[in-house]
């Protein structure tokens, strides 16, 4: 109704109320036999007469207020936010690690984003809906699509900065999917702009899509210094010793002096003071550390004696600590199938020391299917005139002169026979041939191989491959097209180096070297990569750095892991009698990109940015007038009850 229509109602109602009020104010007459006594009594309360009159006036005012409320209700005034077309808003909140960076106001970037999101929620009209999506390493819907601003606000308060990058691609895809079929779709991305390449691409694609997509960039300080790499490894030739490498980078705009402290199992094993210019990174290696200490933690700490002109601020703390575990020490099982006539080969293998468990098998035993062949990590065939087994074992294989006989199980086909071949070309950069010089090796006879796609010819003789590496699946095969006994290769220094290189190459293909991974959502890991025997293991109990335990199923020796917190994760196999032993895994930040607090949106098109925050809707929910009417009714009932029970008079 219009004001003109409401005015007569208001006036009429006011007149009626006033009339009834005056009628009500007429006092009841009480006839008493002796009024003089009443005069004595009431003379004392004369001073409160004015207040009583005011109180009665208040009663009239209450009635008038109620009337006005009803008139307002009849008028049904609605704010503009109620009249416009409904909006379905998807709020994507970047909760990457960089959002924990501080702002000039003293809060965090996420706090600013949260405030803006609250403003957007507060501006929702009664027909509007919003969904809140948090984008971290994992993407989650914090609040489902709803118009309940209270629930949305409460959900916003639960968002916290995570570790790692924001998976904006998935978050925006989810947001588009949620609002695509809704009325008035709109996507609002709240981010600091410190995104990786994938995030930038996703953002560009979103802002260019049909669905309106805008960005609210929250700003903050960019000073940050981070540990961008941290790893520990055993020395190849001294496996009881480890070496730790740490890389620290100044990602801010000011020179920084900082102290790197490396702890092993809680004991500090090394400190380095670093002075880093903007953008500068430095690697520090701690050598000859005892491998008995399995866990290494690197901390960045503020120096106690700063230098003039250098900042000591570390920035957000999420990247000031890094973790590493020492790779487990597992011997390599090597089985040598030989007739015992190649002492040079045996000598070369024996130089591997305790790191290699060496087992000797005769060609006859090999043909009979000796157990050592099935259990070996690497099998070396050097059978000379003997016969190879019908099939090669499921292991890494180094085979010498596999095509001496016509029936060979070697999967690399023979190309041709050669007499007195010369080794003319070798793939020097390949690890198998590292420090190996095959020049002028004299060979009595040999065979060349026919390559297939994926094969690598490590050594050639006049262009024909004579030493070939084939890698299929989990195993590799190195086929040498001549017998060492029919050459002077064993007499050369290169021979034991070659053998060592082959074993080390195969060893590095073997599991047990995955000791550190980057933060991330669900990912698949091989138990073998963690140094755990997967035979019969059906489940793995994973203990997170925060102490939570979770059992994960194991399928074909692989398990899915959610590593959302940096730190040490413990894996304990369950089932299959493989409970013995646990494996550890270090999880760290993804790298310098995640720690860089600089916004990459500085050069973005200004059109993609949302403007100022909208004003809050004057009335959040629809049934306002019901509430007003209930309020009016409550006032009337209260006033009536108090008056007629002589409480207010």
């Amino acid at each position, binding site marked *: 109704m219009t004001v003109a229509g409401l005015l007569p109602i208001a006036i009429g109602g006011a007149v009626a109320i006033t009339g009834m009020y005056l009628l009500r*104010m007429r*006092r*009841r*007459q*009480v*006839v*008493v*036999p*002796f*009024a*003089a*006594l*009443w*005069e*004595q*009594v*009431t003379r*004392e*309360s004369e001073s409160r007469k004015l207040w*009583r009159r005011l109180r009665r006036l208040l009663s009239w005012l209450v009635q008038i207020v109620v009337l006005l409320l009803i008139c307002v209700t009849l008028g049904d005034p609605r704010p503009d936010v109620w009249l416009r077309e409904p909006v379905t808003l998807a709020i994507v909140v970047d909760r990457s690690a960089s959002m924990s960076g501080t702002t000039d106001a003293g809060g965090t970037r996420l706090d600013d984003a949260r405030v803006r999101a609250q403003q957007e929620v507060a501006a929702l009209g009664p027909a509007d809906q919003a969904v809140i999506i948090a984008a971290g390493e994992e993407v989650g819907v914090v609040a489902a699509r709803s118009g309940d601003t209270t629930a949305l606000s409460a959900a916003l308060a639960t968002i916290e900065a995570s570790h790692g990058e924001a998976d904006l691609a998935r978050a925006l895809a989810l947001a588009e999917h949620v609002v695509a079929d809704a009325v008035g779709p709109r996507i609002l991305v709240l981010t600091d702009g410190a995104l990786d390449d994938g995030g930038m691409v996703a953002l560009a694609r979103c802002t260019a899509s049909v669905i309106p997509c805008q960005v609210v960039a929250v700003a903050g300080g960019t000073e940050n210094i981070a540990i961008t790499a941290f790893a520990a490894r055993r020395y190849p030739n001294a496996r009881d010793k480890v070496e730790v490498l740490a890389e620290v980078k100044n990602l801010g705009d000011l020179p920084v002096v900082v102290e790197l402290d490396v702890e092993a199992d809680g004991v500090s094993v090394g400190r380095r003071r670093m002075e880093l210019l903007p953008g500068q990174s430095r690697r520090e290696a701690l050598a000859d550390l005892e491998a008995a200490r399995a866990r290494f933690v690197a901390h960045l700490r503020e120096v106690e004696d700063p230098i003039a002109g250098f900042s000591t601020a570390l920035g957000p703390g999420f990247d000031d600590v890094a973790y590493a575990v020492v790779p487990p020490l597992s011997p390599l099982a090597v089985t040598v199938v030989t007739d015992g006539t190649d002492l040079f080969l045996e000598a070369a293998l024996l130089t591997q020391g305790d790191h290699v468990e060496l087992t000797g098998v005769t060609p006859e035993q090999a043909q009979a299917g000796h157990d050592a062949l099935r259990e070996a990590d690497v099998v070396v065939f050097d059978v000379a005139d003997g016969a190879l087994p019908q099939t090669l074992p499921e292991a890494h294989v180094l085979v010498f002169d596999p095509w001496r006989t016509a029936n060979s199980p070697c999967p690399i086909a023979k190309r041709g026979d050669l007499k007195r071949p010369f080794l003319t070309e070798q793939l020097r950069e390949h690890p198998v041939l590292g420090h190996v010089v095959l020049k002028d090796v004299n060979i009595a006879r040999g065979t060349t191989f026919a390559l297939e796609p994926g094969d690598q010819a490590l050594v050639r003789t006049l262009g024909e491959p004579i030493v070939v590496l084939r890698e299929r699946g989990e195993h590799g095969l190195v086929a040498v097209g001549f017998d060492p006994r029919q050459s002077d290769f064993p007499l050369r220094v290169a021979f034991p180096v070659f053998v060592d290189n082959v074993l080390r190459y195969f060893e590095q293909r073997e599991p047990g070297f995955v000791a550190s991974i980057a933060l991330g959502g669900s990912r698949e890991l091989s138990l073998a990569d963690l140094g755990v025997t997967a035979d019969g293991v059906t489940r793995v109990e994973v203990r997170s750095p925060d102490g939570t335990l979770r059992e994960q199923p194991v399928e074909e020796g692989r398990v899915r892991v959610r590593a959302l917190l940096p730190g040490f994760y413990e894996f304990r196999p369950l089932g299959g009698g493989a409970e013995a032993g646990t494996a550890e895994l270090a999880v760290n930040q993804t790298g310098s990109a995640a720690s860089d607090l600089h916004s990459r949106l500085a050069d973005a098109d200004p059109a993609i940015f949302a403007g100022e925050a909208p004003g809050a809707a004057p009335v959040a929910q629809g049934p306002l007038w019901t509430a007003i009417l209930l309020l009016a009714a409550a006032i009337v009932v209260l006033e009536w009850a108090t008056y007629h029970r*002589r409480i207010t*008079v």
Partner: protein
Amino acid sequence: MALRQRAAANGADDDTLFDEAFLAKLELLQVIARRLFRGRQRAERKTRKIGSGLEFADHREYSPGDDIRYIDWTAWVRLRQRLIRLYEEDEDLPIRIVVDVSDSMTTRGRRKLRYARQVAAALAYVGLASLDRVGLSCVSGRTFETLPAVRGKGRIFKVFEFLRTVAPGGPTDLRHGLSRVAAQSTQPGLTIVISDFYDMQAFEGLNLLRFRRHDPVAIQVIDPIEADPRSTGLRGDVMVVDCEGDTRREVTVTARTLDAFAQAHERFCATLESNCRSRGIHYVRANIDVPFDDLVLRMFRMGGILL
């Protein structure tokens, strides 16, 4: 309309005022009175009138016109003064019962007035039964009806008729009413005033009787609801109207107000009682919830008032 209905109800109430049950109670009262005062004879109570009795009372100087038979010649011989001998005159004591019929007695269905009439009738019956002369007066600021003194038990129905037919109404004016009673009484005697005494000058009327050598007795009839209205549930803004005049007062009745009123009423009654006792006036407070015969018996037991 409500007042008319109430008046009609009061008329019917007057018809049952002195019914058979009432008369039976009166008979019982008389029997009890006889037992209590057995042995006493009529005219044992003496008036203070100086007259022609046998018992010497006093001397006074002779003045011309006095009967010379009463000159005390012995005193003349001794003192050479002409003195007249005075004697107390023996005379039966008249009883006058004054009933307040003002408007204040008619509130709340005339309960106080009905009670006052019943008490007056009972006292009159006892007096008549004792062969005393009993007169009645109904007074108010507008009404003054008198039943001349009668003697004999058979006159009780005249008393009933008088009490039944007197029209109540008018403001309370005991001072004026009692002064008229005193003026009309040729012989002072026991004057019983039955009223609620809701009159600031009521005590002056009693005192006036005392000055006229009456022996006044004040019976204050009180309606407990009027004395303490806390149980009535009366609350809120009301206009208090005096039933006897135009006095109106806006009052906001609260629990505290009612407490104060009850206390003020109690103080008023206590003041009246105190004034009466300080001047030798018998005072009896009569709660109308107490049966009238119980009240009369209580007065008997008090002694000195009746018989």
